[in-house]
């Protein structure tokens, strides 16, 4: 009897309990793409900040077409050196000062943009 009462109480009251609809109804669309994710018209841009050794947004992916201009702006809380692999572009980062590296994407491939001293990968530039 005690068990029955307990079960009945749980069932009754849990009717208003934590019934998340999150997965009972599907979430956002999972519609698949039929073409490669496109880059943006004009400059391919990324704005990145580095604070306390953490990259924000977390290490990303910047799509660019061959011949397109790529601009990567980085603001770091510590002094460091910015380096674009493959294109071998470098820039000094001073604490709190945004620095933009801009280059024409003439080489195809995937190129890492990183900080040399802290060894962080800030983004990868994918040039097609």
């Amino acid at each position: 009897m005690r068990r029955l009462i307990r079960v009945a109480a749980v069932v009754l009251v849990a009717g208003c309990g934590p019934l998340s609809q999150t997965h009972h109804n599907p979430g956002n669309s999972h519609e698949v793409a039929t073409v490669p994710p496109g880059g943006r018209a004009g400059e391919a841009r990324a704005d990145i900040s580095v604070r306390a050794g953490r990259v924000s947004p977390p290490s990303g992916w910047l799509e660019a077409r061959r011949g397109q201009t790529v601009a990567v702006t980085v603001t770091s809380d510590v002094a460091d050196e910015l380096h674009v692999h493959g294109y071998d572009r470098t820039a000094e980062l001073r604490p709190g000062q945004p620095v933009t590296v801009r280059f024409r994407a003439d080489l195809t491939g995937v190129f890492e943009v990183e900080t040399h001293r802290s060894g962080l990968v800030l983004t990868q530039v994918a040039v097609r």
Partner: protein
Amino acid sequence: MPPLRPSSRPPSHRPPLRALLRRAGSVAALTAALTAALTGALLLPAGVALAHEERPVTLPDGSGSVPALRTGEPDLLVCKTDQADFARRVAGFPAELRERNLTLFRRCLKDGVRHLQEAVDKVDRPGMTIAILPGLYREEPSQAAPAGACARLPARWSTWGYQILTFEQQRQCPHNQNLVAILGKKDLQIEGTGAGPLDVIVDAEYRKLNAIRADRADGVYFRNLTAQRTTFNSLYVLETDGFVIDRVLTRWNDEYGFLTFASDHGLYTDCEAYGNGDGGLYPGSASNLNDGRGHDVPRYAIEIRRCRSHDNALGYSGTAGDSMWVHDNEFYDNMVGATMDSLWPGHPGLPQNHARFENNKIYDNNRDYYRHTRDGTCAKPPAERGYERGVVCSQVGVPPGTGVIVAGGNYNVFRNNQVWGHRGAAFHLFGVPAFIRGETRLHRQADTSDFNRYEGNVLGVGPGGERRPNGRDVWWDGQGTGNCWQAGAGRTSPAALPLCAAKAPELSGGSGRWLAEPVKLTKLYLCADFSAQAARLPAGCDWFGASGLGKVETQLALGGSLVLGLLAVLFWARAGRAARRRPGDPSPGGVAPARQERTRRGRRLVVAGTVLGLAGLALDVVAAAVDDTLLAGVALLLMAGWWLCLGAAVLRDRRAFGRLTVALGVLALADAYDRLVRLIPVIPLGPGWIRGLLAGVWVLAAVVVLAPRRAPAAGKPAVEAEVPA
């Protein structure tokens, strides 16, 4: 692209209870709760979906083992053919590694293949190794949308917009849903040869549900590569006994970075996941080895160590995450560091049990990605949402700013973790009745949130020893048996918690409640109305931004306080009128002086009680608004004072009502004791339930007592003249 069917989502059931709860005061709401609960239960969907829908699966028999890394020469090589690009990619490698890669590249140009799937298809015996050289692997031959017979497979469409395929259908059409499909291969090792995971990237470009699927692939070993950009999971391991995920990065998926399901003998090591709409790591339905055991277990099904999971909705998600050993990882910058639950039907191994979290760093999980849901970003197709720029579309409704959530789990142990910097709770525990996961047997209904232990964790201290407190260290709904926490936790709700003794499962101050605290239960119900698809973020739930008076807890407290406050004032006024009839005055009722003196004493009690009561009611609202457990306890004490004073004042002339009022005061005292000092043992429901229900009855009785009456007939004493209140 598989033809997507529009999801046939049923119209949202919105029980009338919820609207009621928002408007009504706590007393009225609590009274209504039980009545309306039946309605709520009846409105449950008859059949519900999985957290992810998959074919019926069988847990492995456990005869396998965790595979070991093979370091010999690879059997198969995968590379691209652009020599200049390859030379650039390896230019920065250490000399020895560069030479090794250049050697492998020359060999690969001669007898290797250009796509990972090609190599997998060449695997013809157990124990082969595929080396995949630095490059971007888009797997062009696998990208095409299903055509011919593959576009017409006889399989059910899930409401998620994809078909539930059998293993045989996956074999027949491996690229309907997977960019790379590893089906039935044994002891296969796939290893990137770069300096790090980012040197080898398998990119699904949001064209497939899964970037890499290892299905019934016992002994599979993944090492040193990245998989990214899918509409579900980057790396999916299913029905596999023995797997290793070693130095693998997964990112930018609608749901999970890593999903391992219905598997055993697994190891995640040195992995990383970010940018996922659900769990970065999701070891779901691992083999339920320890079902029926206590805290003493022989082994765990899956070990996760030295991984980093960040910038996801959830760092770790463990629906039926059974028999997990999770240690020395970092979970940070997510909305919630880790969750484990028993919420979703159809997962083998429910209720969730036996996850052991040790020596993890769980910190700063304060992201709030719901803004992307609000502004319509998440309504776009996945490829256009901007995951690569930091957008995360949360598929789950959770309280951002939380370290670890256990939503209906048993025998989980959290030991020696460092948990700091959360604006919400470090540890969040609540019960989940079994019927929610589709369990219909009566005796199982209250089988979750039992015997979880939180001990030896360092709370609110940053890596350098600096103070980085959590908003609160514990939030517990009060349900369950045998749960305990370490001594010395900071702010907690409730303030009094069972304390773990040295040896499991011993503890002190324990309780065994069937149900959660009523206000917490109401809040959980409201918050659970989140829908990613409908972009519905329940107003009133502080998980989604409600604060102060906008929170459901505050509204409940305010409603209750207004009702009770009005009654308090009316009792005070009534007592005042009675006392103004002085002894010796020719009172209309001809009341004797002794009785008038008693009335005056009663009035003083009522006045004193009313002052306490009004202060308590006001404090109750403030406590709810600022989410302060101690203030709420003090408010209860003050309200108890009111009821006790009032009850004493009316006891002589309104005996039944007076006893009811005193009983309410005593229950309020018990409730305050339960919250502030020590959980009252034995009782199956918290005092809040009984107090709330009794308060509803008391309000009705008070209205009757206070109701105006007809003027007394000449010569008869007025009833109200005899009652100080």
